[in-house]
């Protein structure tokens, strides 16, 4: 008998495997964009606007162009095409034309023989800007009479959303308690450790453009380069090197990528563009400053009767992903709990700051924060335990939400049970020493947007699997592994479906000349969509191999039993073939085999018919619950996170090691936003644009994060899997703010909960107490 292969029985899934590209990372041989061979490349540099809003009166690059060692100087005149992520909202030029709208917006760019020469040439560019009134808050930008950033957007409103589901007025009327909160969250940044970079090679003889860059979605860049450079897409190749983190920063096409391509073509050669950390912050596209006004109606037993929510996002100077972000903020109020009636008003505002975009937990995080804080305060008002308030509002899968989101698996009840037990909640809540507290919250996120931005009628994902004479299996996927381990996921599902050893499978990822187009690494879509496509491809290949074995063994394919890498006729016969033998037979007459697998989200998964209804739609939501233990120093206002317990329903953990890592990373990123991260501008000038001033937690401030994986086995997920890397993020901040309320009895309404904000709240409480005492004495 052949021993059962460890892959075939799925034990890799139970144990988890290290990343298939992990050895390169720990030995320093992994090549990121800045590490690529750039022999002979020119160096690119960008001239950026020193004012926040102004008309370009004069721009003279003649002196820079005449300088020895300068090969190209470009301005807005060199690209009359806008770019952007949504076909309906492309209002940004790679280099400003006529007007600049934020401090740091690219105006001109240089390619020169070396960095020093490029920087001196930048200094030789002469320009005059006529300043216009600039706005740094949503309120100023929306004020009557404010100068418009974009002439077609009155009130500086990029997009208004008004959604009504169910009878919310009746819901509020039927409530025992209605409470409203105003909560604001600071703008934050992805701050991935790898600064932005790209290397573009233009071959003037063949007219071919090869781009190696940090993009999470090479396909978008491919389209935008063709548009901005007026090139045929077939002459462009986008290759993804190793990528040092994304978190959404690199989902949109970024101005420096198009600028570098324009420079390379103008210089007829290769250009390396390495942005500084400051420029990486300026490129931005992260989570906007958000004001949430939220009202919930609740019955005495904790049952929610209605919710009304207004969200204002300060989106920055250009559209970017703004419409999607403001839609997500409303749509994902649903899908976590059963909310019988909902009113949502969203406003995405233009302001003279770097454009915001997508960041981990896209659109959902700040509204989730406000909702979960309010839910906690209301359960306190009603004398309910916070867990009980959540349990009173659970959904039951399969179901559809009011806004027509499809829910097929729902592991939230088990997530609640797990963190309640692991944290010792029942024994410890209310019994911790002074200054210490426990708080909890829930969150969820999509496993891929069910409706892609560019609707082409193609499947949502395509994976090719190759088999050649060497017996090696190569999975080709356009999906960008940016450190989350998606290539490892593809290798696992292919090896497991085929029943072959994991190291027989290699994954080639994100090279437009080799790999099938993919919609990219965003909205946590890869495991669900690409995983399913990879299984589909591997099944097709397996059938080919079984047919080949059947021919050789003179049996029917149905009688072939495959155990690991051995093919045999089932029951009692001794005849068996090795994998290598079967490959030889399979290749007779046809040669090397490439099969294609696909995955398509059915129309019923793609959201409701209301305007904007596609945003938030997905094949499956991940669910998370967490408990945070925190302490507050009332002398300094310093909040310390002592421990976090998180449970996440990812359907099925295809690679538990990576799932755990993703959950810890996302919870921790939520902690950064909650505790200390915040971008600050002084009249449009970033005061946070270094990793010292942008305060993300160091290892010293980072607590243990205990992870509980819950597997609800989604009926459509690959092996039942859903996403694992965004769902837990949104629950951290409210769990912390709820823990602070539990510790010191103060409800904080602003993120991050920096010592100055905590101190201010403590001082105000003391003042109010004194005032109350005085008033009492007076009466």
């Amino acid at each position, binding site marked *: 008998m052949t021993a059962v292969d460890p892959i075939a029985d799925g034990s890799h899934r139970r144990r988890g495997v290290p990343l298939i590209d992990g050895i390169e990372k*720990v030995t320093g041989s992994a090549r990121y964009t800045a590490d690529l061979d750039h022999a002979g490349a020119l160096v690119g540099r960008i001239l950026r606007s020193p004012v926040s809003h102004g008309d370009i009166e004069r721009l003279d690059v003649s002196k820079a162009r005449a300088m*020895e060692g300068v090969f190209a100087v470009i301005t807005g005149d060199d690209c009359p095409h806008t770019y952007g992520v949504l076909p309906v909202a492309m209002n940004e030029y790679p280099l400003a034309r006529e007007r600049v709208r934020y401090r740091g917006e690219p105006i001109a760019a240089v390619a020169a023989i070396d960095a020093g020469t490029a920087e001196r040439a930048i200094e030789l560019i002469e320009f005059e800007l006529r300043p216009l009134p600039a706005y740094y808050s949503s309120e100023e930008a929306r004020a009557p009479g404010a100068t418009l950033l974009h002439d077609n957007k009155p009130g500086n409103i990029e997009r208004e959303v008004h959604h009504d589901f169910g009878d919310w007025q009746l819901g509020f009327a039927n409530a025992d308690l209605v409470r409203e909160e105003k909560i604001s969250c600071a703008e934050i940044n992805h701050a991935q450790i790898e600064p932005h970079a790209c290397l573009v090679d233009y071959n003037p003889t063949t007219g071919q453009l090869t781009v190696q860059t940090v993009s999470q979605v090479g396909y978008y860049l491919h389209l935008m380069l063709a548009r901005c450079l007026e090139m045929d897409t077939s002459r462009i190749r986008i290759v993804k090197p190793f990528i040092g983190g994304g978190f959404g920063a690199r989902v949109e096409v970024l101005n420096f990528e198009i600028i570098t391509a324009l420079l390379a073509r103008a210089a007829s050669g290769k250009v390396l563009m390495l942005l500084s950390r400051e420029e990486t912050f300026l490129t931005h596209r992260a989570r906007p400053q958000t004001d949430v006004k939220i009202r919930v109606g609740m019955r005495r037993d904790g049952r929610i009767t209605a919710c009304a929510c207004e969200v204002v996002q300060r989106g920055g100077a250009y559209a970017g992903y703004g419409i999607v972000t403001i839609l997500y903020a409303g749509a994902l109020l649903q899908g976590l709990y059963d909310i019988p009636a909902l009113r949502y008003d969203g406003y995405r505002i233009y302001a003279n700051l770097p454009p915001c975009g997508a960041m981990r937990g896209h659109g959902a995080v700040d509204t989730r924060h406000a909702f979960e804080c309010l839910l906690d305060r209301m359960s306190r008002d009603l004398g309910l335990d916070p867990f009980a308030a959540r349990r009173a509002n659970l959904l039951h899968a399969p179901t559809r939400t009011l806004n027509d989101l499809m829910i097929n698996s729902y592991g939230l009840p088990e997530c609640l049970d797990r963190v309640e037990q692991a944290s010792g909640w029942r024994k410890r809540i209310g019994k911790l020493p002074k200054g210490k507290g426990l708080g909890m919250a829930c969150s969820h996120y999509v496993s891929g947007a069910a409706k892609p931005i560019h609707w082409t009628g193609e499947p949502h994902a395509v994976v090719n699997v190759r088999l050649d004479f060497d017996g090696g299996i190569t999975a080709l996927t356009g999906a960008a592994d940016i450190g989350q381990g998606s290539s490892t996921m593809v290798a696992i599902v292919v090896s497991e479906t085929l029943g072959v050893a994991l190291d027989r499978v290699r994954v080639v990822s994100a090279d437009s000349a080799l790999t099938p187009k993919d919609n990219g690494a965003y909205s946590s879509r890869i495991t669900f969509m690409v995983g399913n496509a990879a299984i589909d491809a591997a099944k097709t290949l397996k059938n080919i191999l079984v047919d080949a074995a059947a021919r050789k063994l003179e049996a029917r394919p149905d009688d072939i039993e495959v155990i690991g890498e051995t093919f045999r006729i089932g029951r009692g016969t001794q005849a068996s073939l090795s994998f290598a033998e079967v490959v030889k037979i399979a290749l007779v007459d046809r040669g090397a085999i490439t099969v294609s697998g696909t995955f398509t989200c059915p129309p019923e998964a793609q959201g409701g018919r209301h305007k904007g209804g596609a945003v938030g739609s997905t094949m499956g939501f991940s669910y998370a619950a967490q408990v945070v233990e925190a302490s507050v120093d009332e002398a300094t206002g310093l909040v310390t996170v002592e421990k976090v317990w998180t449970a996440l329903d990812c359907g099925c953990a295809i690679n538990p090691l990576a799932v755990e890592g993703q959950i810890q990373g996302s919870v921790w990123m939520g902690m950064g936003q909650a505790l200390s991260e915040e971008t600050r501008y002084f009249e449009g000038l970033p005061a946070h644009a270094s990793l010292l001033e942008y305060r993300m937690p160091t290892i010293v401030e980072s607590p243990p994060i205990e992870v509980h994986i819950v597997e609800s086995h989604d009926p459509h997920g690959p092996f039942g899997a859903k996403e694992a890397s965004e769902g837990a993020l949104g629950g951290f901040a409210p769990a912390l703010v709820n823990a602070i309320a539990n510790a010191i009895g103060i409800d904080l309404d602003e993120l991050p909960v920096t010592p100055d904000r905590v101190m201010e709240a403590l001082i105000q409480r003391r003042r109010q107490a004194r005032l109350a005492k005085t008033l009492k004495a007076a009466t």
Partner: protein
Amino acid sequence: MQIPQLKKRLLRLKINGRWREDAIAEDALLVNYLRNVAGLTGVKTGCDGGECGACTILIDGKAVPSCIMLAVRCDGRCIETIEGLATQGRLSRLQRAFHEKLGTQCGFCTPGMVMAAEALLRCNPTPTDAEIRAALSGNLCRCTGYVKIIESVKAATGAVS
């Protein structure tokens, strides 16, 4: 406009066990020398100077951010980078632990993180959690939340299986 002449000096130093000599501009940063001249691109640049620790290397056994050190100051000294840790295809204990325990996700901070941990373990083979946190406090990671980084360092010391 003419390209200005850079003043250069002869630099002799030992990198990953081998002596080498290069003519180096006086203002060249060590990180740029290591990456662009010595070809050691495992040494990463993640910030504009001294903020993130991705460029951490060992100079005479001490962990130093190579982005705020002039190359010419390393004359006669002994440099170790991530590329020198694995010997004949055998990963170091730390490298193996970071790989197996997922102390690395995107991998960009990993070389600096591993070198900082290497310096710690050489002088303190059984560090406490607090000592690990103190030694790695200058190395930023954006992916892991540091949980598995601490586990990796402890695994390398044999403290956890």
